[in-house]
């Protein structure tokens, strides 16, 4: 599959060899993910605390989120995680074409996620289920439903931002795949995009039950 016009990757000047470069970059990526997990972890702890503070607001607001749409989005993300893992596998086997197919599949799944998210957001806007002062939902007995929706928009918004960044990484991988030959020793971009997508999945796996199922 490998096209003869593709170049081999060149090791950066300050590394001794490809292995050192790859190991360093992968380690750096893990640290970055750990940092992201700390950030989302704090956000989740904040969410749990709000749930503890205002259980009535959560119980009353949760039915306004459609768990079926949430489940569909969970499916999109996790399947995207699977195709990203396949892309990384194929990259090691120098199967440039299959790498691209899987990257495009992942991109489509990510787009699916965003489309569903947009539908959900639109419904919230329509019913006035908005954060803070903008909240004008009807029929709520809890005084704090605005907090639930405030948290909902912040948490899912920040997550959606990470989905967009993940998609950017996929597009970057597609670009690199046209220029550089992936090999067993050099498949770093695909590996990183996959790791990043795993993070996006992981965060969602916690957000989904907190927002859609609990309470």
């Amino acid at each position, binding site marked *: 599959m490998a096209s003869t016009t593709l170049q081999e990757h060149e*090791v950066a*000047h*300050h590394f001794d060899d490809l292995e*050192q470069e790859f*190991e*360093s*970059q992968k*380690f*750096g990526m893990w*640290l*970055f993910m*750990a*940092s*992201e997990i*700390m*950030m*989302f972890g*704090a*956000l989740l702890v*904040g969410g749990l*605390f*709000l749930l503890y*503070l*205002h259980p009535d*607001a959560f119980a009353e607001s949760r039915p306004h989120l459609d768990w079926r749409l949430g489940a569909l989005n969970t499916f999109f993300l996790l399947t995207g995680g699977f195709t990203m893992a396949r892309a990384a596998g194929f990259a090691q086997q120098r199967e440039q074409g299959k790498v691209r197919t899987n990257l495009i599949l992942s991109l489509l799944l990510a787009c699916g996620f965003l489309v569903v998210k947009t539908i959900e957001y639109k419904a919230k806007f329509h019913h006035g289920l908005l*954060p*803070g*002062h*903008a909240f004008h939902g009807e029929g709520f007995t809890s*005084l*704090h439903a*605005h*907090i639930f929706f*405030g*948290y909902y928009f*912040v948490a899912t918004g*920040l997550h959606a931002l990470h989905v967009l960044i993940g998609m950017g990484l996929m597009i970057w991988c597609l670009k690199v795949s046209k220029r550089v030959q992936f090999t067993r020793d050099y498949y770093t971009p695909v590996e990183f995009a996959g790791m990043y997508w795993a993070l996006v999945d992981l965060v969602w796996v916690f957000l989904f039950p907190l927002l859609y199922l609990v309470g």
Partner: protein
Amino acid sequence: MTAHVHDNINYLKTSKGLKSWLTTVDHKRIGLMYLASILVFFITGGLYALLFRLELWTPNKDFLSVDQYNNFFTMHGVIMVFLVVVPGIPGALGNFVLPLQIGAKDLAFPKLNLTSLYLYWLGAILAVISLLAGHADSGWTFYAPYSLSKNPAVMWMLTAAFLLGFSSILTGLNFIVTIHKMRAPGMTWFRMPLFIWALYATAIMQVFATPVLGITLILMLVENFFHIGIFDPALGGDPILMQHFFWFYSHPAVYIIVVPAFGIASELIATFSKKEIFGYKFIAFSSVAITVIGFLVWGHHMFVAGQSEVADTIFSFLTFFTAIPSAIKVFNWTTTLYKGSIELRTPMLYGLQVLFNFTIGGLTGIILAILSVDIHLHDTYFVVSHFHYVAMGTTMIAFIGGIHYWWPKMTGRMYNEVVGKFASLLVFVGFNTVFFPQLIMGSQGSPRRYYHYLPDFQIFHQISTIGIIILAVGLFTALINLLMSLRRAPDAPQNPWGARTLEWEFAETPPVLFNFKETPVVTHGPYEFAKEGA
């Protein structure tokens, strides 16, 4: 990689012009740019302090209005914490020294390193915008709900702090990877200089604690714009939650601030005593131990904030454990002097000051962990003074000592030794004159952040204000002394201090573009002075 002609010349001369500096990925140049930027903000933050200290000469209005005073202490705090002491030693000295000390050609991610610097600059620009946008007056702690008053200056400040946090995370990440993966042959973990261990412990805190500050600041901004009600009690939120989030970062941040200073102190004391450091492994691990404990003690900032008594008790208990590694470091440094060959050069004078000031800073910290006593001392000048004994007396003094120590390596010039020593003496006297009276004033019950105070406290304020003038003169003298050396021809030898670490033994003064003409092979520990010349 093929060697270019310019690879073997001094890094300051490889290319010329502003653009070559702004686009460089050389860790040494990035370090120098950090150094220059941090010194600019240190002077700015210092001027704010000087002005409000002068205002405090009498209990009532002298020349600043109460709003100006509130704005000035806020600007002083934000600038000094987020733009000076947190990024200071890692950004400037860490960047320059780390690859040299472990025998690497550069940091693992040179472009990311430049990105960190640009994020730092961007954060700095936003802080300046905040200055122009009005009076940020929330204090550096941004406590809700006061900080939720939609003051645009506070919002710019929050955004600035967010970007600076991001910069800090990327620097930490870069350091950890570099230390793990880029050490020269023979540079085992226990042959690493203690400065590297300290930077390593710091980097762990930067990577794991800063993101929590990030999310806190995001939530604060969203709260300001949309009034979600997470922190604002008027909307059903909890302001104490904000404090938990804030201190979960900001307590480790105090260790981000001070641990690198321990590293520099170890370098200075060992080198200028020509002595192997006493208890190397303990000092190395104590930095890491402080890191771990540092994540578990944030609640001690909230003993009067209404968390549960059980939580207060647990946080107090854990806080006492930070005392042990800190105390042992002090004992180890003192013991290192025993039977040494001690030379009181300028950097060493700062090293000894660190030892002196940190002993006071540490001891005054332990008393704040005693629950019943803390209730009285909380939010008084005692806490202000304790914090400054650590952040200024330990960190900034170590930073200045480190600048004097590595100055010849960075610039190729020696500064005037007599002037340097004189300045360090002024700094010592000035610093302690500023902050020692504040300990007494605080335990007598004077609250902090007070524009208007009881006349009983005036004498302490006046001594403190005299102190800051001495301190300012000392710091200014030191700065001029360093800058004057740049006018001379390069005259620094490769290893003016007889140090045993790689940057002095192997690298030229100033180092070549990729640090070493050939990869160094390490055969001895960082402080093996007995084998000198062998």
